[in-house]
């Protein structure tokens, strides 16, 4: 291996450390600034106070946005998980012509810009109001990315599960559906959790479709934040951001803990 003790190794290391600071520093800055006792956003923070948290938690826009986002992301995660996993099972457990092509097609929304998807959907709903505006419309729109995300996680997981497991269960007397639920599903659990977490976090964090398709009445938290960040450099925005960072951290740790059990 390239020796990390050589001068060259040290250069690499130094660059890596700087990159790390660049990567995570801003998140740290925002958390620190949220505790500042000043009336404006200050970094390094001056004093220590929780008043911006109090203010944020008392602000109905943020609270409402948070619960809208929670409902949105929760529903999207569950629906994406069911639809995506069903498709992943069909794509891995059944043989039919064009299977590989279908797989690539289903994953394609992931490589296209979110904003283009959002514009196309805006025009589409204007012409064909297939879903009521606001949250329902946003939920089904997020499926467009949520389902491929679940597929991308579940396809390799399913490919790793020995198909003989289900056959063994059938051989021992379990009807096909029961065999799936008794032996394949438990083997998929860590993957299902990761997939759901990914779909949840996508939907919770997404802003383009939310801006285009959400209604003002139930605007998700990212839209509220986007608006607030544009308006003023308000420390409450930092407090809300810090809480979102904490939420992300909890989710990531939970997902890792579950995967490494």
């Amino acid at each position, binding site marked *: 291996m390239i020796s990390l003790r050589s001068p060259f190794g040290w250069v690499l290391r130094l660059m890596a450390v700087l990159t790390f600071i660049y990567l995570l520093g801003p998140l740290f800055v925002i958390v620190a600034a949220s505790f500042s006792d000043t009336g404006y956003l200050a970094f390094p923070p001056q004093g220590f106070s929780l008043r911006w948290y109090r203010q944020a938690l008392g602000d109905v826009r943020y609270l409402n946005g948070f619960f809208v986002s929670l409902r949105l992301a929760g529903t999207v995660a569950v629906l994406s998980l069911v639809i995506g996993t069903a498709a992943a099972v069909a794509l891995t457990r059944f043989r039919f012509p064009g299977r590989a092509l279908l797989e690539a097609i289903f994953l394609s929304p992931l490589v296209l810009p979110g904003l283009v998807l959002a514009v196309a959907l805006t025009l589409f709903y204007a012409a064909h109001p297939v879903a009521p505006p606001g949250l329902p419309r946003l939920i089904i729109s997020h499926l467009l990315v949520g389902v491929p995300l679940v597929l991308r996680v579940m396809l390799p997981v399913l490919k790793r599960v020995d198909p003989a497991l289900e*056959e063994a269960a059938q051989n021992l007397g379990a009807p096909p559906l029961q065999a799936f639920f008794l032996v394949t599903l438990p083997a998929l659990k860590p993957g299902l959790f990761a997939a759901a977490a990914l779909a949840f976090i996508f939907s919770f964090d997404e802003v383009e479709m939310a801006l285009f398709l959400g209604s003002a009445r139930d605007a998700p938290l990212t839209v509220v934040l986007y608006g607030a960040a544009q308006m003023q450099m308000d420390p409450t925005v930092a407090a809300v951001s810090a809480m979102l960072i904490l939420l992300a951290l909890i989710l990531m740790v939970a997902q890792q803990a579950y995967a490494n059990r």
Partner: protein
Amino acid sequence: MTTVSPELVLEGLARRYGSTTAVARMDLAVKPGELVALLGPSGCGKTTTLRMVAGFVEPSEGRILLRGRDITTMPPHKRDTGMVFQSYALFPHLTVAENIAFGLQRRGVPKPEAAERVARMVALLQLQGLEKRLPKQLSGGQQQRVAVGRALVINPAVVLLDEPFSNLDALLREGTRIELRRLQTELGLTTLFVTHDQAEAMAISDRIAVMNKGRLEQLGTPREVYDRPATRFVASFIGRANLFVSTDGQHSEDGIALGAPGPGTWLLRPEKIALDAAPAAGPGSVAGTVEVVSFLGTGAQAVLRLPGGRALLVEGPAALADLRPGAPATARWTRPDLTLIPGEN
């Protein structure tokens, strides 16, 4: 001779994938308590045959009868077969005891009875103390025994094994196959056993079904297929073979004084040949040059290069290994040592 009605019958069973024929119109009857090995080279259709019996592959033609019932179109979970998979397919989230109990639960066997049957199986397979372990906490040999136990505990009408020993090392493999044979005879299990290892098939089965390119070439006891192979393929796949084609019986096509009773394809097993230093004299003898000798422990093997260019394989006592390569030697055999292969005429 009383006829026992067979437990498992395959009638003209065939399976095609597009233009390839995996199994071609196969007829086979397995008697109660009998172990039949499906033996053949890779790709000859063994697994396909086994999976048709288990219900995972739909036959293109033919019927499968189990205990007199036609199960050809019955879904796998309703057939009464117990399969041991090559990969074992142990349920990774269930313990050893739960794996073994799986089939009993599906059959609605009451809890106390199920627990008792699991315990008996655990004892029979010497898995005591491992009941609470997960499959990944077991050695390969232990996993293999759990897979066998899980298939046997439900008392299936027929046990199906697909190369169950292929993931074990050579030493363990021999011990395990003796164990399996003991268990199978003790419990009187009707068994279909897939292997591509002829020594394994010889050691374990009542009868061997030798397959080649999807066709059943010969069905017989290990002795029968060894001593009286029906085809050239069987002769060379089971044991080692020196084969001679002769139009008059006197000489083979390549000019060796065969001394056979008539025309045909003749098999001369290497262990039937004697080597000495005297010159060749008449039918049943040929002089050549020793090319390679190898000492095998229980005996030795020599390759004799004959004047026509062909090589003759000879097996005999360990003393054979004392021959020096390059030395002249004469191979001898008698008429009864030659076996006619009927399938080749």
